[in-house]
């Protein structure tokens, strides 16, 4: 978080025109407000929707006869969750005080996106290496990292939610392969529903 300049830059030689001082003061107030704002666009009901779809996807994925079809199910769920969360975030941000294009919103996205991209790349790498049993733990861990780092610019409950995802991810990495869908249902399903409901009640939709 950039701190505001607390000392006025007045040259020693000539007095600063009054209107310049006034403009500088207004910019100072605006910058201080922008720096002090938390990104409140994390969607509550969108999170609940993502959780419900994740539980459905876990059930469907668990029925799949091949690894490829299992993976495709979760990739489809990933895109669906992205669409649900994205639309909800854009709508909430636009209706609230911190749009995604605000400094707080941009910082949120800048912190959120890299772990998600890392998860996408590692998914391909682990699939090619035949280590798909590690994917549920990896997805939960890196999604949790994204929510935690992005949540540092948001309201306090968001990084807590991210830490919970990371915890479930770590546990999932040490569970047997057939527990992957259960871990995903617990993590992406129940955590999203629980925290989403809390965020919706406490901070609005």
């Amino acid at each position: 978080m950039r701190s505001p300049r607390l000392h006025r830059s007045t040259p020693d030689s000539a007095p600063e025109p009054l209107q310049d001082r006034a403009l500088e003061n207004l910019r100072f107030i605006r910058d201080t407000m922008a720096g002090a704002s938390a990104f409140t666009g994390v969607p509550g009901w969108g999170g609940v929707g993502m959780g419900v779809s994740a539980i459905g996807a876990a059930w469907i994925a668990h029925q799949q006869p091949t690894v490829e079809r299992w993976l495709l199910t979760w990739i489809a769920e990933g895109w669906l969750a992205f669409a649900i969360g994205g639309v909800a975030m854009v709508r909430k941000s636009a209706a609230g005080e911190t749009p995604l294009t605000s400094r707080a919103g941009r910082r949120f996205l800048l912190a959120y996106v890299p772990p998600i991209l890392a998860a996408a790349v590692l998914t391909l790498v682990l699939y090619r290496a035949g280590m798909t049993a590690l994917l549920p733990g990896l997805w939960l861990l890196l999604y949790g990292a994204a929510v935690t780092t992005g949540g540092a610019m948001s309201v306090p409950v968001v990084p807590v939610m991210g830490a919970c995802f990371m915890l479930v991810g770590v546990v999932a990495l040490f569970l047997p392969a057939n527990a992957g869908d259960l871990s995903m249902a617990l993590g992406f399903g129940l955590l999203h529903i629980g925290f989403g409901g809390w965020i919706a009640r406490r901070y609005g939709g």
Partner: protein
Amino acid sequence: MAKSNAARKAAGAAAASGGKPQLTGVTGGRASLAPDLDKVIHERVRLAIVSALAVNPSLSFNELKSLLTITDGNLSVHARKLEDAGYIDCLKSFAGRVPKTEYRLTPAGRRALERYLAHMEALIRMARGS
């Protein structure tokens, strides 16, 4: 939250456009403007405290200190002046055994910030009109 949004929009719009919003509470020419200036929040640290609190329901002592990168003593002195003026409320409590200090902007503090913004806008409008 709607009030903090209004203050933020006023500051942003005025800084960007040079003071288009309608003035409130500021009348007269150049001579009458300067004496009206609120000296309590005109000081930079106090202006920063009030601005930060305008967009947050409350901020702890440590959050404000970290946000403004100032020392404990400096923050205490300026926060006390704002408190004495009735612009912020200070709530002391304990989180376990650790003392915690929370600051909130009072309605008087929010009005003072809005007056200050209007004052700055008036100065800019006057300079552009002359």
